[in-house]
């Protein structure tokens, strides 16, 4: 253990160089798999003579993307805004409720079974209904479905975090005459944060899914989900695929952004320093 310790206090340039070197080594196998996968896909289509409408070649998808990039990225951004809005509302509400449930445990015992049950409901099935509630052409209907999707994993994780504080930590704080507020700031919140981030990483993926699927049931013509559906209906599969790639790109970028914030915020976690 103590042998790894000096890394933390090394002069920055050397540590940075080492870090970059290690990153390259860490990522090289995954990148290799990506390249092999794309090459394999391309070759499989040629060898088995798969029709383009069933599965376009990666090069075709890439070309299609490049030609329609302005429209695709604009649509992606439009849908991402819905996902982001839903994420913010869903996570905010979930953390707020988790705080209440952690504070009043009786309330938690009364509501948690329903929260867990609700978590098992395929919420995405409600998408046509939220469209009806908020009018399908608005962003609000997609924000609503994304928010509900984000809500439960964050609630369950945040509550677990807030209630997993070691009793000895509370005793220690009390022995210093600390009040509830200080105990919350110094102990409960830092203990809960890793759990909340776990929930938020799950939610970031769900938010994008919720927004796109919500759009399948109707939405503005600028929306990515509408684009995917309409292109698939007119057999423009390469364009549908390019739009799916954009949706995936935004989803992955969102996840990575949350993961990055997590890493910066929780820099003290042993796992984050490995």
């Amino acid at each position, binding site marked *: 253990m103590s042998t790894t310790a000096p890394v933390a206090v090394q002069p920055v340039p050397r540590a940075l160089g080492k870090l970059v070197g290690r990153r390259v080594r860490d990522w090289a196998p995954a990148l290799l798999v990506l390249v092999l996968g794309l090459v394999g896909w391309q070759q499989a289509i040629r060898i088995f003579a798969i029709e383009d409408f069933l599965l376009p070649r990666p090069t075709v998808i890439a070309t299609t993307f490049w030609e329609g990039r302005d429209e695709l990225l604009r649509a992606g951004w439009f849908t991402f805004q819905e996902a982001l809005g839903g994420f913010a509302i869903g996570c905010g509400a979930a953390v707020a409720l988790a705080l209440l449930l952690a504070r009043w445990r009786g309330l938690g015992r009364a509501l948690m079974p329903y929260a867990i049950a609700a978590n098992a409901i395929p919420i995405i099935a409600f998408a046509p209904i939220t469209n009806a509630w908020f009018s399908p052409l608005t962003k609000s209907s997609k924000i609503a479905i994304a928010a509900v999707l984000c809500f439960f994993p964050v609630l369950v994780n945040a509550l677990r975090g807030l209630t997993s504080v070691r009793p000895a930590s509370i005793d220690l704080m009390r022995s*210093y005459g600390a009040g509830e507020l200080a105990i919350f700031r110094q102990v409960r919140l830092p203990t809960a944060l890793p759990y909340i981030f776990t929930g938020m990483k799950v939610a970031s993926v769900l938010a994008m899914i919720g927004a796109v699927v919500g759009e399948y049931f109707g939405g503005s013509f600028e929306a990515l989900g509408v684009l995917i559906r309409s292109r698939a209906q007119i057999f423009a599969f390469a364009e549908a695929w390019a739009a799916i790639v954009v949706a995936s790109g935004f989803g992955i970028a969102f996840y990575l952004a949350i993961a990055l914030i997590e890493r910066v915020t929780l820099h003290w976690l042993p796992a984050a320093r490995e």
Partner: protein
Amino acid sequence: MSVVELQGVSKSFGRDVTALEGIELKIEQGEFISLIGPSGCGKSTLLRIMGDLVEPSSGRVVVNGKTARQARIDREYGIVFQDAVLFDWRTVLRNISLPLELSGWDRRRRKGRVREMLELVELTGFGDHYPWQLSGGMQQRVSIARALSFDPALLLMDEPFGALDEMTRERLNLELLQIWARSASTIVFVTHSIAEAVFLSTRVVVMSARPGRISDVVSIDLPQPRTGLTREDPHFFELVTEVREALHLGSDGERGTAQASAGDPAV
């Protein structure tokens, strides 16, 4: 004035479990008191009552002339648990300065004091490490430094070295005595180990179980300062024997009352 005064302190959990009964104890300034006894004798509970982490069912607890609660709010206690209870999100430095932050010390004063404390527990150079980067013994030294950082009137230690290996434990025992001598604090120390209690203490409070009572108080008149050689002093062994016999007497007495109560269904 005594630092701690316990008068008729009892503690029951629920209706059937009497953890402590009729505890009378006075602890003077600068004493090193060990509480020793079998599991379930309530020694940890007694320590927690002194620290106002548990309320007694009856009796009076006076700490520096105040109620235990007032003493806690006035930050008269430094507590060390069996686990170091360090906060993973704080560096060693910031763990030690936590009670100082809560007491509203400014940054410069905190910095100076934390450096002194690191020196005291011989961890200079480890201030920027995180707790998980330290060994168990080092973590416990950090928690001792944290407890001492604000000069509490009373240091309460609940089996602080219980989870450590024998070698580390003996070394930390010596360090603790040096710290105690330098800081002139009053220490109450819960332990399972007779030898540890005798080696460290000015008085050993022997407790018996069910209900938890003080069955004997053994004065330890070994010369100060104590060193590694103290453990080889014949008088050390005499005192260890005395405490051991007191412990057995206590548990025999317990067996006696158990038999008596078995014979009397009304009890």
